[in-house]
């Protein structure tokens, strides 16, 4: 009796902790495929909520997309093919991580370029400061003589 209670508690906790928006009925029997489906769902955007993955979202459309992901996996699609299936319908926006291509170079590499430019600026600034003469050249004999007369006169 006690053991059954404990087991059911553990089961409940496991269910509560594991799946979020996922309905147990959606899950695949094959654990390897289900793991791939979960991983893919985390990378796909819910088009309705827009800042949630379909793994997190409770939206109706997100549930449909999770189902489609599982169907494609069962049909034997690779991860890339599953993503491509949704990109063909919803565009790159459905991917939470934007793909690296000509249109997104500024997005992916822009920050690094700005950082490099900043670093270059700092480097040039310090180089110039160091290049400045540390002390002016010593006075010539003539200058020293003039300085002495000026000081003499001031007394």
């Amino acid at each position, binding site marked *: 009796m006690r053991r059954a209670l404990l087991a059911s508690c553990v089961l409940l906790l496991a269910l509560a902790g594991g799946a979020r928006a996922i309905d147990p009925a959606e899950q695949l029997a094959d654990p390897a495929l289900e793991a791939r489906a979960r991983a893919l769902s985390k990378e796909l955007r819910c088009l309705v909520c827009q800042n949630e993955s379909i793994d997190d979202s409770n939206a109706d*459309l997100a549930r449909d997309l999770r189902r489609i992901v599982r169907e494609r996996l069962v049909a034997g699609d690779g991860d890339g093919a599953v993503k491509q299936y949704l990109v*063909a319908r919803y565009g790159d926006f459905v991917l939470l991580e934007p793909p690296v291509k000509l249109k997104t170079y500024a997005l992916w590499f822009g920050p690094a370029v700005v950082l490099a430019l900043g670093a270059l600026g700092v480097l040039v600034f310090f180089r110039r400061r160091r290049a400045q003469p540390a002390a002016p050249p010593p006075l010539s004999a003539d200058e020293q003589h003039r300085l002495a007369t000026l000081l003499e006169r001031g007394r």
Partner: protein
Amino acid sequence: MKRLLYLLPLALFLALMGYFAVGLQRDPHILPSAMIDKPAPDFALPPLLDGKPGIARADLDGPLLVNFFASWCVPCRAEHPVLGRLAGAGVELLGIAWKDKPEDARAWLAELGDPYRRLAVDRDGRVGIDFGVYGVPETYVIDRAGKIRYREAGPITPEDLKDKILPLLAELKR
């Protein structure tokens, strides 16, 4: 030359402001369609009403509009009078009840009027997903070859109707 270099940060700042100014005008909830200039997906959907045919891919010989709607969708209600006017003006309008109970959709049309030439039920929403629908209402302009030429996400606004949809339909008719 050197002086111009000092103006560079200002120029960059202004360019960035320009981007932000344009970006702020856009509604981030309206997504561009990935299906523009692609052939409409293949499908065959059962009719919603007795006596009015359902819709299959072969029926998409445009120029025509395919409107996805649902009785549970509030903006669809707001859009409905616009559809009535379009149908009155002779635009061929096909309706797909998306993820809706057929009896609810029928009651909705009985209440508001039925502007559609053909009406179909997409109960599980799969055909909508093939079109790239992410919410209702959505309206697609289809050309003679069955290609998707334009997608309006959300209710058709008077501006988009006047500036985009009607001119496009006129162009496709030629």
